[in-house]
């Protein structure tokens, strides 16, 4: 039996694990944790086998579809893009589940925890292997629900409950845009076929959507006096969904707060998997972005700006998990930036961006799990109360160091020596340089380079503040148990080596994502539709450009070393409420004030007051009037029902008579 036939089990097993653990977990060993772990392990094996098969036979894309109803289907599509995501998500999720065995061992609600993470994994896998946009959206929403449940896992804590609500509401803004995008897409397709949707094909399947790109891009609508292609609207709305899910500016505000959940949740959802769903969505529908003018440029700018913007805030945070949260936002920005560079490099952008996504998943999961290990042992998340943790937790320290080097992108250009992050981040920065050279627009490149400097600075600041020096408080910790350190070590190996080993193979593999029997698009043709000018023969950047990311990375290390280890600069003069720059950063650019106090409390609340007045006084008045009237009529008519059987019989006979007369009249009129 071919392994492809088992593909449906990949999301199904974790979903079943959810049901079993949720209902029966309490009575099982360690809250039933072993069931999700086993289920995800099998999913992982199937995913990896499919990926290997696909690597050897790139044309054997898995596509299965069954009729759902009307013009909709349920289906599985595993092409190279989906295959690498599947393998990564199942693998990282598996390690995090194992780690959680130790991390959550003392929590009374752990069966609920494992059930929810299993459901989350199932939903995420559903997003990845959907073959149509609607099914993807359904799973996407399920992912959102799970993140709400998991962020608010400790719902007794008011801050956790508030964070869960914030995450849900903020991502909802993006979800609504995504759904609107699907609706616009559908109405566009409806127009293409003049209202007669053909039988036997499913128009929301990716293959059909991609086939219709030329027609959709030829449709134009006028918005505020600008003539915009229908395709641009659709793609920007899809991107809106991605902005919400992947924490891009300005919908990133939920991600730092989401750290209220258990650290394993942060690692699973807010580093490795869920937040990458947005990036995946853009990659999945990349041909549409290629065909839409200006959409990719928007993606690039939003991504680049987010990368820079989030890293500035990472520098001043004192909560170890918040630093990592801002780091995640910033890195997701890089991935979006990479995708946006499709404007000049075409399909290669997907490879570059996904490569960073995968590497990032490894090292960011590792960073979070190390942080979790520290928190588990020290009992606080505030770095100002740590210091010298490296001495008591050597394994955690070394793995964290590896992860930090990967995040900062240390390596030697031109060779295969370097951390995972180095290869992927460098590739993104190189493409931005190519973009700059080609279009004369250096802004994305500058975003990339400056963010790289800040990235290195904040991560080494974290490292020095946490692991070196003397303990600043009396915390008395211990190294974590094996069940936690082993996943750390495995992830560390991947963070260190995965990039260097797979660099070439990875790009070649993903390059053919949209060239198979199921989906076949010509990037050149699409680029023409989108007015993009593709460059061929990249890879001839000057040596300085290749080295610059590494140089700024080292510079960041040196800055942090001098300030936080050698303490050559007295931070107390800078870290003060009087320093406007510090104040601005520490208050996170006053986003809270802007989003909550201005937008939410003043504008939205004001509007809702007006809405309430209209609703209560006018609409409710009408509705109440109708319902009162209806009830009164009902009361009257029910009196006809006397309970006397003679009158019932009379009604029957009268009914017959009236019906005859009525029909006679109608027939004669006709």
């Amino acid at each position, binding site marked *: 039996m071919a392994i492809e036939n088992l593909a449906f089990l990949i999301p199904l097993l974790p979903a079943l694990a959810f049901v079993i653990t949720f209902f029966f977990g309490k009575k099982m060993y360690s809250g039933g944790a072993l069931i999700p772990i086993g289920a995800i392990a099998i999913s992982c094996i199937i995913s990896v086998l499919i990926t290997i098969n696909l690597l050897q036979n790139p044309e054997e894309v898995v596509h299965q579809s069954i009729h759902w109803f009307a013009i909709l289907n349920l289906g599985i599509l595993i092409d190279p893009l989906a295959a690498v995501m599947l393998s990564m998500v199942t693998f990282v999720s598996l390690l995090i589940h194992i780690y959680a065995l130790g991390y959550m061992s003392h929590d009374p609600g752990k069966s609920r925890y494992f059930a929810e993470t299993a459901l989350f994994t199932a939903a995420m896998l559903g997003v990845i292997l959907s073959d149509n946009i609607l099914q993807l959206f359904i799973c996407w929403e399920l992912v959102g629900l799970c993140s709400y449940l998991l962020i608010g896992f400790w719902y007794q804590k008011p801050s956790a409950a508030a964070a869960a609500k914030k995450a849900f509401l903020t991502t909802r803004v993006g979800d609504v845009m995504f759904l609107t995008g699907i609706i616009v897409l559908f109405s566009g397709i409806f127009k293409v076929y003049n209202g007669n949707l053909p039988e036997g094909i499913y128009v929301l399947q990716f293959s059909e959507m991609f086939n219709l790109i030329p027609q959709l891009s030829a449709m134009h609508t006028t918005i505020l006096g600008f003539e915009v292609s229908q395709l641009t609207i659709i793609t920007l709305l899809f991107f809106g969904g991605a902005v919400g899910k992947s924490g891009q500016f300005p919908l990133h505000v939920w991600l730092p707060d989401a750290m209220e959940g258990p650290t394993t949740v942060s690692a699973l959802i807010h580093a490795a998997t869920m937040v990458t769903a947005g990036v995946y969505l853009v990659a999945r529908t990349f041909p549409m972005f290629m065909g839409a003018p200006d959409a990719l440029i928007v993606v690039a700018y939003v991504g680049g700006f987010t990368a820079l913007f989030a890293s500035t805030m990472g520098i001043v945070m004192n909560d170890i998990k918040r630093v990592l949260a801002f780091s995640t936002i910033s890195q997701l920005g890089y991935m979006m930036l990479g995708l946006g560079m499709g404007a000049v490099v075409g399909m290669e952008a997907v490879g570059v961006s996904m490569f960073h996504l995968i590497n990032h998943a490894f090292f960011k999961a590792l960073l979070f799990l190390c942080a979790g290990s520290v928190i588990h042992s020290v009992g606080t998340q505030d770095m100002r109360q740590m210091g010298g943790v490296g001495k008591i937790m050597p394994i955690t320290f070394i793995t964290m160091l590896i992860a930090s080097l990967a995040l900062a992108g240390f390596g030697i250009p031109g060779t295969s020596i370097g951390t995972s992050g180095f290869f992927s981040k460098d590739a993104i920065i190189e493409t931005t340089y190519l973009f700059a050279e080609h279009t004369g627009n250096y802004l994305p490149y500058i975003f990339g380079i400056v963010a790289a400097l800040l990235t290195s600075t904040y991560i080494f600041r974290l490292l020095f503040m946490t692991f070196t020096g003397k303990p600043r408080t009396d915390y008395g910790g211990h190294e974590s148990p094996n069940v936690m350190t082993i996943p750390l070590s495995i992830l560390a190996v991947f963070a260190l080596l995965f990039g260097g080993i797979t660099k070439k193979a990875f790009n070649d593999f993903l390059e053919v994502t949209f060239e198979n029997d199921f989906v076949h698009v010509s990037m050149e043709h699409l680029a023409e539709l989108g007015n993009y000018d593709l460059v061929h023969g990249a890879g001839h950047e000057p040596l300085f450009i290749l080295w610059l990311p590494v140089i700024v990375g080292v510079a960041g290390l040196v800055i942090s070393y001098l300030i936080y280890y050698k303490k050559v600069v007295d931070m107390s003069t800078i870290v003060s409420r009087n320093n406007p720059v510090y104040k601005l950063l520490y208050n996170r650019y006053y986003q809270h004030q802007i989003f909550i106090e201005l937008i939410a409390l003043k504008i939205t609340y004001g509007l809702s007051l007006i809405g309430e007045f209209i609703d209560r006084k006018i609409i409710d008045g009408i509705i109440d009037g109708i319902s009162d009237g209806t*009830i009164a009529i009902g009361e009257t008519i029910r009196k006809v029902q006397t309970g006397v059987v003679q009158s*019932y019989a009379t009604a*029957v006979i009268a009914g*017959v008579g009236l019906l005859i007369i009525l029909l006679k009249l109608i*027939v004669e009129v006709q």
Partner: protein
Amino acid sequence: MTNYMLLAPELVLTLVALAIMLAGLFFGTKHKNILGYVAGMGLFAALSLTIGGLAVNETLFYGTITIDALSQFFKIVFISVSLLVTIASIKYTEGNKNTDEFFTLLLFSTIGMMVVASANDLIVLFVGFELASLSTYALAGFEKKNPKSMEAALKYFIIGSLSSALMLFGISFVYGMTGTTSIPGIAENAGALAASPIGLIAVVMLIAGFGFKMALVPFHMWAPDTYQGAPTVISALLAAGSKKMGFVAAFRIFMVALAVLSPNWQTAFAILAVITMTLGNVVAISQTSVKRMLAYSSVAQAGYIAIAFAVMTPMALAGGILYTLSHAFMKTGAFLVVAVVGYMVVSDNKNAKDIDHLDNFKGLAKRMPLTAFAMMVFVFALSGIPPTAGYVSKFILFSSTIESGLVWLAVIAILNSALSLYYYARIVKYMYFLPAIGGKVSEPRPYAVAIILALAGVLIIGIWPEPFVYWAMEAAKVLMV
């Protein structure tokens, strides 16, 4: 050569019914409980046999019986309802010395309905109709000591006889004009009917006869009284099962035999549909007895299904036919929930009055969580909220109505659905938001099994409608010759 295997489901049920009747003579009251299980197994066997013969298309006994997609579809509806009712009745009849009669009558009424589904001749149809009716008259009065039950049975019987008389009157007119009682034969000679004013009268008489079973306004007035007074499990059978018998008979007679007269009856059904659904929903709002409310809701649902006659496109027929299946599950389920609540109230207080009063549903979610959840699904299905069977059926029916140009009819139907939510949601409010009176109660197992099966039916059709829609389309094709 007659292939008796095609009638295997009917034959099995007949044998089981006779066996139960015979066993009743010898069994003591204590052992009669087993008869319910026997009836259940017989029904299950009949269901399996019917599903096994889905693809058959043949006529038997000189063309008086036909086995086709339509008959099989409705037989499955009838057997499913009877099966659910039987399972639940195992608890209801516990310790009753007339248990054998109960199940015998239940099976006979099922056989009657199945004969109607297969009838290809007016005489066979009438006999089947009467077999089912007479059995249910007795079942409605099963609680001999309960005056309400007797009243229910008597009213049902009087109005039923009147309707049978009207139906026979209509049949005699049809026979007089066409010279045959065979349905395909009538279709060939219906020209004579169409040319004469007698045709119109015959159509109205037949509508009145079937309208009694379907509970179309103004032939519905027996229904609320009977549904309320009869034992609740029997109300489920009447509302979900025997009502559909009226529909399948009407489908065959009007769509096949009297197709030529369609301008007459299409208009008649359009008018009746509007009046029926509106009156049903409006009066349901002011009911405080849940059984009575479900009775009126059942009247309203008949109005929706009657749209299929007014529209008469293949899609609309498929929608109407699918609706009967969906309605079978959701209505049976809802009545069984009322039965469980009644059981709960009586076990709280032996002398309780008004056991079907809405107040008894207060806080049901705390007292019987499974039942409350199931009831929520059933009432949402009845009002047509996804992902339930009710939504799928309404969607197909209403969208086909719009497609055929009868937008006004669809608008009225949709407004009615919105209206119905008022009283359906009220039950949910009572169950989930009002405080409970009394502690947690565990459902008797037979009831729980029946409710779970109905719940599964409602949800499966709602989530995976495709095979059922296909199946209903096949059944509709029989009518569109």
